[in-house]
């Protein structure tokens, strides 16, 4: 555009698609992509969500899981892939580990602070680099008693 510095060429749609799949433009899927999902509040006081590993995609789906607030998450993990994977998941006290053979499912109970986000992944081979690295996003604010005593300030 006139008056602006062009730093990159326009990216073709096929290239964009190739970034989000295995052995397309890249060897694996570039991290931080994929579907976005939201955990649901349960009557047990915990949040609940399901993450799947689809066949031959080497990703967690949703790749970005959003929690409405800090607290306990009961996560179901389903491996629909015809290969074995695992997950090392963030939780206060210690990470949680689950091994997921082909076509298996299990659960992990996680306790997370917020706000902020956390990565997790499958620590076998280079699953993490190929795309099996997901995020859990905790939304919200810190408790009022932890906030600074000052007038409201601008945010980005």
């Amino acid at each position, binding site marked *: 555009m006139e008056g602006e510095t062009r730093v990159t060429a326009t990216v073709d749609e096929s290239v964009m698609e190739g970034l989000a799949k295995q052995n397309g433009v890249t060897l694996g899927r570039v991290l931080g992509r994929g579907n976005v999902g939201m955990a649901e509040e349960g009557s047990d006081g915990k949040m609940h969500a399901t993450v799947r590993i689809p066949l031959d995609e080497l990703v967690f789906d949703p790749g970005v899981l959003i929690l409405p607030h800090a607290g306990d998450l009961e996560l179901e993990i389903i491996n629909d892939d015809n290969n074995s994977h695992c997950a090392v*998941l963030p939780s206060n006290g210690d*990470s*949680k*580990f*689950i091994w997921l053979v082909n076509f298996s499912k299990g659960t992990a109970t996680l*306790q997370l602070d917020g706000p*902020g*986000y956390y990565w997790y992944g499958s620590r076998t081979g280079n699953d993490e680099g190929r795309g099996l690295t997901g995020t859990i996003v905790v939304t919200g604010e810190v408790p009022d008693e*932890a906030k600074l005593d000052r007038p409201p300030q601008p945010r980005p």
Partner: protein
Amino acid sequence: MATETEYVDAGEAVDFRNLSPGYVGNAPDVAKGVNYDRILKAREAEPHNWLTYYGGYDGQRYSLLDQINTSNVKDLKPAWVFQCGSVGMHSGASTYSFEASPLVVDGVMYVTGWDGWMWALDAKTGAELWRYHRASPYDVSLCCGNVNRGCAVADGKVFMATLNAHVTALDAKTGALVWDQVFGDVRAGESATVAPLIVKDMVIVGSSGGEFGVRGHADAFKLETGERVWRCYMVPEPGQPGSETWPADGEAWARGGGNCWITPTYDEELNLLYFNTGNPCPDFDGGVREGDNLFTDSVVAVDPDTGEIKSHYQYTPHDVWDYDSTMENILFEMDGRKCSGHFDKNGYFFILDRTDCSLIRVVPFVDRITWGEIDSNGKVTARVFPDKEGDPVHFWPGPAGAKEWTHAAYSPKTGLFYCPVQDVGATATRRRRDFKESIPYWGAGVAVDTEDVSGYVSAFDPATGQEKWRFTQEHPMTASVLATAGGLVLTGGPAGKYWAFNDTTGELLWEFSCGSGHHSSPSTYSVDGRQYIAVPVGYGAWTEGFYPGALAQAGGAALFAFALPE
């Protein structure tokens, strides 16, 4: 795809630590009897332990242990090494550093790492008794790396601050969480890296975030329950004492910095905590905060019962060089007078009367100081500073200071202070910017020198201010110093060597290459009559600030315990 009924049951995810060979899972109940009285008498009554951050409330980092001494230190060897790598992605993946000071209670070592790690180790063998790993948000604001400086122990609990500004109490036997309190706002750019301090029935912590325009504070919580006792802001709001040193209009005070991210020292007789505070914000743009900007870059004496500020001394009024004064005030006696010694980032060594924080003596402790001058009466004259927009200025010391946060030591035996010194300059160019919560608020572009730098360990006599000896080498010194009754001064360098010196002459007596640089606060202890030196090794953090010439130095994740052969 398989059908629902064909899924293999993978079960419930397990604690990752259970997949660590040799992991024990519990520790002896040694911390139950640790209390305020024991910590008060720690150095003299139980020199085999290292019960609190500096080894004692006075901050001296001095041990009465003398089994390892000037005559036999040449035989010092690693007795064991504890290694901790990491799994997956964590915040500050390139800036983590092992900065802690290990505590030891009757054969059990408690030590924190980066990214929410806390370990209890067998201090004799290095066996991992238990671990706690606080999940830390990947996106927390960290000016200076993913680091933590240590823990506190009392009442059967271990206390640790987390990157996202929680203070947690753990069961010292198992590592299980007892209570958890939030004391900072990560959306405002706050975080926490401080080692907590136990005083009376409270645990004391302070906030980080001085590069993000927060309002610095210290907080006290009940040991037993985590109930908040007080919060003390280090920048006054309008109308409070000190507010006259900030612009009368606007909200500069609300973004003023003054964080206390280093553990205070404490005088029980005077009933005063000595907090040291960080830079004002924005770091380099003084035009938006005219005035002295109290209580930034100061020592602030606080009543631990109320959180009330009793007195202060400001080392760098109206700082525009990022000269935090967060590093320790070491308490000592001189000519029957209650004094404190402090090596400031601004390159001057201050001796104060700690009863009222009045100045006794101030002398330079680094060769190159061009930012300005402090005369013998404490009068500050600024000479070189970022003033005009877009105009680069070079000054010594650079923003990491002539001494970084890593600690000096004081030996009552020699009467000398031992200081790790950085002789590094920098260029800052003022660039005014708007304030937005969680966005770095420096007010300048900064490039630290990569050439013509050096470092030294220096011994100073507080009675005269004279340097008694100096060990010089090409690297800025970025590790805390330890002094012992064995006549030794110990510290490490950025290239990985750990050294022992004669405390009187400065003669180098022993060295060992640890494989990564030193940026921690080693401690010493003994178990079953054998003395150990515990040295966390893992270079990193704000390397671009204190020594960019070492940005490619190998990271590390090891704790070495050195001892004499059995």
